[in-house]
């Protein structure tokens, strides 16, 4: 479904070249649940941003269903983010002055959803994630788990083909973390491709079909559940 070929993302800071992502080639199939793991600074979040079209590679190519992302115009790339990809952030990135419902609705502004359907679709998504009684609450009035579920609702409401989640459990306690992971697993079972970035190996190992381990910008290991079982 999505494939990177020799992708690099290098930053130049004066004479120094920082290789955040260096010649990474991975291929992720449809309905796969992939966890990208690694220590801080290993380049996993940068890789996720490249896959999301939020950043552009300095070398290599990223293909989504046969379309090379780094040749798309800015507007086409925006459409890719608006329709094909749902993104979750570690810090939720909810807009603090908008209610939960309005935050979710925002994702529908850019994918051509008609005005009248927008509110109903967003409400349905929040209800599905157990936030029916929290729709009119602002993020500050919600718990961390609820905020992450609002962020998940915002990522899913446009019915993306792939969900990219950057440390989805990083700011959550154990219970909320498990809840979110259960939700992602359910969604994956409903044919959603899920790619998460995490440094929590327990969670990654328990839920992901495949673990991609990164170290200093390079993929050093790619283990399927079978591989891990064998190990």
């Amino acid at each position, binding site marked *: 479904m999505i494939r990177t070929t020799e992708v690099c993302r290098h930053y130049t800071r004066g004479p120094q070249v920082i290789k955040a992502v260096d010649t990474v080639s991975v291929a992720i199939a449809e309905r796969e649940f992939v966890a990208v793991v690694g220590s801080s600074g290993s380049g996993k979040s940068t890789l996720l941003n490249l896959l999301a079209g939020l950043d552009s590679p300095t070398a290599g190519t990223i293909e989504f269903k046969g379309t090379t992302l780094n040749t798309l115009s800015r*507007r086409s790339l925006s459409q890719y983010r608006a329709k094909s990809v749902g993104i979750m952030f570690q810090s939720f990135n909810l807009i603090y*002055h908008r209610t939960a419902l309005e935050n979710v609705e925002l994702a529908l502004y*850019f994918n051509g959803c008609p005005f009248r359907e927008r509110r109903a679709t967003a409400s349905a998504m929040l209800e599905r994630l157990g936030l029916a009684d929290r729709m009119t609450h602002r993020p500050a009035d919600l718990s961390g788990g609820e905020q992450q579920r609002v962020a998940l609702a915002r990522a899913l409401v446009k019915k993306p083909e792939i969900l990219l989640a950057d440390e989805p459990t990083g700011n959550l306690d154990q219970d909320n973390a498990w809840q979110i992971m259960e939700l992602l697993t359910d969604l994956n079972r409903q044919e959603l491709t899920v790619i998460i970035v995490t440094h929590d190996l327990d969670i990654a190992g328990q839920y992901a079909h495949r673990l991609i381990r990164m170290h200093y910008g390079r993929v050093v290991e790619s283990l399927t559940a079978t591989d891990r079982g064998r190990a």
Partner: protein
Amino acid sequence: MTFRDLVAISAGNLSRMKLRTFLTVSGVVIAIGTFVAMVSFGAGNQQYISDQFDKLGLFSTMQVQRLTKTAAGDSTEARLLDSQALTDLSKIPGVRLAYPFDAITVTVALADSQLSAKAQALPVSAMQTRLFSQLRAGSSFSSDSANETVVTPQFLHLFGLSNPDSIIGDTIVISVRVATVDSGLAGLLPRDSGWVRQQVRSVRFDSLLHSDYRQRQAKRLANEAISRFVNGFFNHRAILKETLTVVGVLEERGTGHTRMEPIILPVSIAAKFRSAGLSDDPTALFSALSQGTIFSLDSAASSRSYPQITMDIDPTVPLKSISDSVTVLGFRPFSFAEMFEEMQKFFFYFNMALSVVGLIALVTASLGIVNTMVMSILERRREIGVLKSLGADDRHIRILFLVESGVIGAIGSVVGILLGWGVARVASVIIKRYMEKEGVGPV
């Protein structure tokens, strides 16, 4: 993302930052208001003055005066504004009517009040021109010989009257004390027969053989005769009276316009006063003596000169051609239309100056909007990032902020225009009232 979405998001963001939005909008309101008020004030003043000029008929009026000696040249005597000049000026193409400014000092009595005032003669045709046809009450006099008069608001003021309608139909008595040659001759005649006897006795006949004595006696007698003539001339004046019905009161007009005396008389009535004798002014006597008209005051009245002649001109004829014709005849033309052209130049620069002040305010307000938007962008960088991750492109973000600026500008402009219009209206009313209170005319 539709325009409706953009406006909704913008309005939401603006309402969230109430104080900042209020302050920015206030800046725009003040700037636009200032600009509108400045421009309105300048344009309104220009329009007001133009309307007043038009209303008073000043665009179709030209004044003609004698050239000053300097202007006429030392060797040339400046031409008099006499009846011949009046005829010549009337013949200029585009001149519909020419009439002189002809004023006399009269005593006017209304009911129990009596005072001295100036009266001005005007032909009925002049009363039909825009300059004199605007009446506050009543109508113009019916003919040049009618025993009727039209008065001005100044006349009402002199007699302490406030309602112009109240005087219509009332009669006033105009009287003039005139000195005639008859009264001078009457003084010259000996008062009684004893005077002749006394004169005869006083003569020393034996001395008449001496030329010195004869000359002294002749001078004495001549001096006494002149003294008696002059005393008779000034002390035995006749009083000429006319009872006139007030038929109209002219509209109020400010200072700085054409000369207008409190009482307007038909020309025949004025001529009666004029030809009956000489006025109180001693120079009139010397003038009559020097011109050799002391024994023919009728002809003197008809050949007299005027300080000014007013011409009613056809506005469709180029002013310059009429003005040039007047100059060629040896007179000095003055037109309010030409003066207005000069005033328009002033108004152009005045309006420009006001506009520049207003524009400075506008630029300042624009910088206020830009500052608000820059602050807003810097504060909402994270929100912009989120929107981009959700599929917004640069165009969406740009439009979003432009719409926010536009909403501020639109609200500020509408309120500012209303405010500016209101301020200009209020200022106009206050200035008008102040001018009326100070007795200043429209110009």
